[in-house]
């Protein structure tokens, strides 16, 4: 397996949407190729970091304003 072939299947490996045979082949490549191992590990880490850190805090009072707006519509319509 070449690095290009590995990269083409990188997402499937990360998302675990491949067959056991294909996974074994990709893991075999990882074992031999330090560069692909770094790309694989750091890509996985990239996703994990974005998933676990809140980068946009919700403004305070936004929920209350939304609630008031919904109640106003409700009085008009329901």
């Amino acid at each position, binding site marked *: 397996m070449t690095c*290009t072939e590995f990269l083409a299947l990188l997402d499937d490996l990360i998302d675990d949407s491949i067959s056991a045979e294909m996974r074994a082949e990709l893991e075999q490549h990882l074992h031999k190729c330090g560069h692909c191992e770094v790309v694989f590990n750091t890509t996985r880490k990239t996703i994990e970091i974005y998933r676990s*850190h809140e980068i946009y805090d919700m403004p305070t009072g936004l929920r209350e304003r939304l609630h008031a707006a919904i109640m106003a*519509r409700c009085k008009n*319509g329901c």
Partner: protein
Amino acid sequence: MTTIQSVAGELEPHPDVALVERVRGGDVSAYDTLVRKYERQIFRISQHITQNREDAEDVMQDAFLKAYEKLDQFQGNSKFYTWLVRIAVNESLMRLRKRRTGKMVSIDEDLETEEGTVPRDLADWAPDPEQNYNQAELAEILRKTIQGLPQGFRVVFALRDVEGLSTEETAETLGLSIPAVKSRLLRARLQLRERLSRYFRRKTGAKETGPGEMGRGEMRVEK
């Protein structure tokens, strides 16, 4: 098996379905529950697309209000959440159009770049790279980095990887084909990885092991 039950959708309806029914029956407090459940996600998605805090606030409000008003049109054949996300994505794009008057805005712009298709920075990262920064610094790095992605990549990454929509749901929400979502996701992930490497790479001198496997040969990647 639970997976089979939820796929069938009959034995175990999604809890949102009951909430939507209550709202339809006139119970506004049930809608508050739905708002509390999804407000953060909707606000984040709006921020990712509009890149503007005020716009994101407006979009969040408008999306929830619109969803409330159109609740009768919600068919229940998709999840309430993905239906809501679709409304928020459309509202966000409309907001962008208003800002850039006259200029068409779509999620397809700026995709010509080849950046990120071939990994260039092959340095390994520090074991827990986030710990080298405080929370505010880290949030700034992550914001700056994702804001540098082309819109069409950023929104796919945000929906698929941050908000956890499936490939199919992301495709449906954005009106893209599944292969398009997959190719954008790969490029988004690789571009973000490349850009974050600048901050997270293992500092030289702090190496625990020698170059080992890393020294062997170049990455063989054809364009």
